[in-house]
């Protein structure tokens, strides 16, 4: 299985070259606010590119890619140069899905509004001290994405 990074400008041409192999997976990996678009063909070739700006759509190469790109655009916030690929796929109000729920700078909407239940020390009753409001390793400001440093 070959894994190859391609430049965003070459994304369309590189995917065209392997389009005969059949699309197996198209997804986004979001590393702390730096989204990467990953594509895998049925034959096992893996291509990926860093997303910085509008991504060329591969919906012209694979019939099923149009739906997948709509899903990635809605859940990760990746923008495609084809307007049909930027239409949301899932029906649901913003409260349930939240804003771009799978992109890592944005905290899960369902978990945002409750305080961390583990803030108290064993045996401590009453409200915990303000200093200990987050789990270990979580940067302050995680809920609104303000802590992301690239």
């Amino acid at each position, binding site marked *: 299985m070959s894994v190859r990074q391609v430049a965003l400008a070459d994304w369309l041409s590189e995917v065209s070259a392997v389009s005969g192999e059949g699309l197996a997976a198209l997804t986004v990996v979001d590393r702390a606010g730096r989204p990467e678009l990953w594509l895998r063909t049925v034959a096992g070739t893996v291509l990926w590119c860093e997303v910085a700006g509008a991504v060329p759509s591969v919906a012209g190469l694979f019939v099923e890619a149009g739906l997948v790109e709509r899903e990635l655009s809605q859940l990760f916030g990746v923008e495609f140069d084809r307007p049909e690929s930027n239409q949301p796929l899932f029906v649901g109000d913003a409260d349930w899905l939240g804003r771009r729920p799978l992109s890592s700078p944005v905290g899960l909407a369902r978990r945002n509004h409750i305080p961390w*239940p*583990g803030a108290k020390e064993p*045996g401590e009753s009453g409200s915990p001290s303000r200093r200990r409001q987050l789990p270990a390793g979580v940067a302050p400001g995680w809920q609104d994405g303000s802590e992301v440093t690239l």
Partner: protein
Amino acid sequence: MIRGVIALKPSACTSCMLCIRECPTWCMSLESHQAPDPSTPPGARERLVNVLDDFRIDFGRCMNCGICVEVCPFDALQWQPECDYAESELESLTHGMERLASHWREPTGD
């Protein structure tokens, strides 16, 4: 092993907070306080122990990952095969300490 509802054995829980902190969906919470240990021998220095007041698991958020069951150092949380805890109100999906203790059956050791 069937992953149904999670049961709690309150007598085994020391309020160490490990399960609460490791739960990825933050669906568990507990209340506790410190009190003098009743089994302190007379004349010895007073010792404090954690006393569990309340323990809650919100099964509307629980994703059945089992991290809490694995991480408990005192085996106070166990899987039970009951899967039929559907409710008509969202709030009823949060099981308090009494209900979690009522699910408990001693593990058979397999």
